[in-house]
């Protein structure tokens, strides 16, 4: 299995807080990789380091062997990493079609394909602000796909979704992996979704990697349980 993303000893310090501390990670091509951890364990910051939102204070990040740490966000996107956000981030006043157009670049998949994959074909002419929460979250994924990524970073994609909506999201993510062959790195609190979707999971605590393994291994890992339930 080829390694798409490799993270080696990456750290990020805010003030005196080590938000991400010496993280190591390898994401193989064509997998869904889950990141879990309690609040404040550094998951979103870690995602930000991968997407160029933050600059790492140490370590290296490579995508297909190319260093991407230190790149500005738009260059990270060009290198092949697209992301979504915890709170909905779309050009809310524009139509979904206009959002996709803004993200498109040469070689991007046709908007119709992206829309079909996310189940939003009927919504293309609609202003994003008028979409439902679940649709907006899918729209974010559609926009990210429109940038022609190799790695898709999803930050809590299921926030506010009902169980059926979350299940549908789960299927969409699986298709992105299976049909487009992308890797997906996903941070999510909906453990149900995570346990069923992810190929592998890394658990973080206090900015560090606590454990890594299959969902089953993670669920039964005593360190992980302790980190959630307290001592």
């Amino acid at each position: 299995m080829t390694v798409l993303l490799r993270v080696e000893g990456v750290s990020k310090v805010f003030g005196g807080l080590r938000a991400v501390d010496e993280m190591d990670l390898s994401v193989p091509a064509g997998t869904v990789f889950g990141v879990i951890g309690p609040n404040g364990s550094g998951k979103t910051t870690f995602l930000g380091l991968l997407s160029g939102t933050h600059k790492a204070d140490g370590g290296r990040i490579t995508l297909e062997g190319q260093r991407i740490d230190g790149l500005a966000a738009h260059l990270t996107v060009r290198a092949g990493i697209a992301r979504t956000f915890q709170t909905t981030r779309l050009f809310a006043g524009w139509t979904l079609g206009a959002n996709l157009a803004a993200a498109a670049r040469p070689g991007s998949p046709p908007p119709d394909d992206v829309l079909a994959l996310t189940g939003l074909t009927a919504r293309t002419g609609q202003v994003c602000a008028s979409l439902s929460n679940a649709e907006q979250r899918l729209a974010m994924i559609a926009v990210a796909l429109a940038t022609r990524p190799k790695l898709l970073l999803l930050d809590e994609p299921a926030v506010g979704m009902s169980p059926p909506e979350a299940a549908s999201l789960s299927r969409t993510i699986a298709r992105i992996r299976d049909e487009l062959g992308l890797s997906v790195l996903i941070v999510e609190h909906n453990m149900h979704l995570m346990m069923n979707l992810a190929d592998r999971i890394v658990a973080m605590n206090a900015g560090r990697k606590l454990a890594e393994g299959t969902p089953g291994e993670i669920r039964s890992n005593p360190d992980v349980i302790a980190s959630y339930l307290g001592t």
Partner: protein
Amino acid sequence: MKGAWPYVGIAVVTLAMWALLVSVNAFYAGVLASILIWTVATSGLNVIAGLGGYPSLVQGAFYGIGAYASALALIHGQNLWVATLLAVVSAGLAGLLIGLVFARTRGQYFGMGTLFFGVVVALVLTNWTGLTQGPLGLMVPFGFATNDQLDWIVPLSAGASLALVQALGTSRLGLRLVTVRADEDLAEHIGVPTARTKLAGLVISAMIGGFAGMLIAQYNGTISPDLFDQTVGFVMFVAVAVGGAGRVLGPLVGSAFIVGVPDVLNLPSGIGLLVVGVIFVVIVIVVPDGLMGGVDAIRRRLPGFRA
């Protein structure tokens, strides 16, 4: 053909302005010429503040730099072509400088930074008496062959500036600027090189502002620092905001309102500014979502983003 209609509209407006300019008496012609020259300057501002959503309060300084550069070139015996080129280039360089200095500031801080820059430029124009004659002002040699040439050059320039912004709005740079206005972080994360986009927008704004400066210097025949101080930069911003930031005809409507109404009503400049202040504060407060936050509906109206 659909894409050509806006230009046809702009051409019709330009012709109408020209017809009005040559048919009314000198007083109204003067008011109209001022409006049209302001339209050029505020169209420039419309690029960074309208399309890009960056509250630049420094357009008055670009306008001034263009005016002084062209005047000085003419005083030193250059022809109008050279003077105009110098006006555009020097204002563009000032825009580049400001863009580099304030590249990483946003929102309020960009506004305040540009405001202070405007203050500095006004102070330099006032105090560098060796070059600018200070508050006394410079007499500007007339660069056109006849006085009547201005009667068509001014409306034509206004029309051209509107058309330029229309074209920019549908260009790749224009679309990128619009994404910066809508959500700069998101723009960056869908691959828009935001820093370069803003810089380009500011430089284009500055260059158009500099061109307008050449026009006002020619039209007035004399220039002084108070034509270009920080209040002017702010009022230009108000004109764009009142007319509708990011809308192609916004600068014309806004300039007609801000420059034309006080002039036609013959208000003393104090009352004029008082009225401008009241209008602006009321508009900012009353218009939902605010002017600088951006009215969503405006974005939808932009070419390429039609609902």
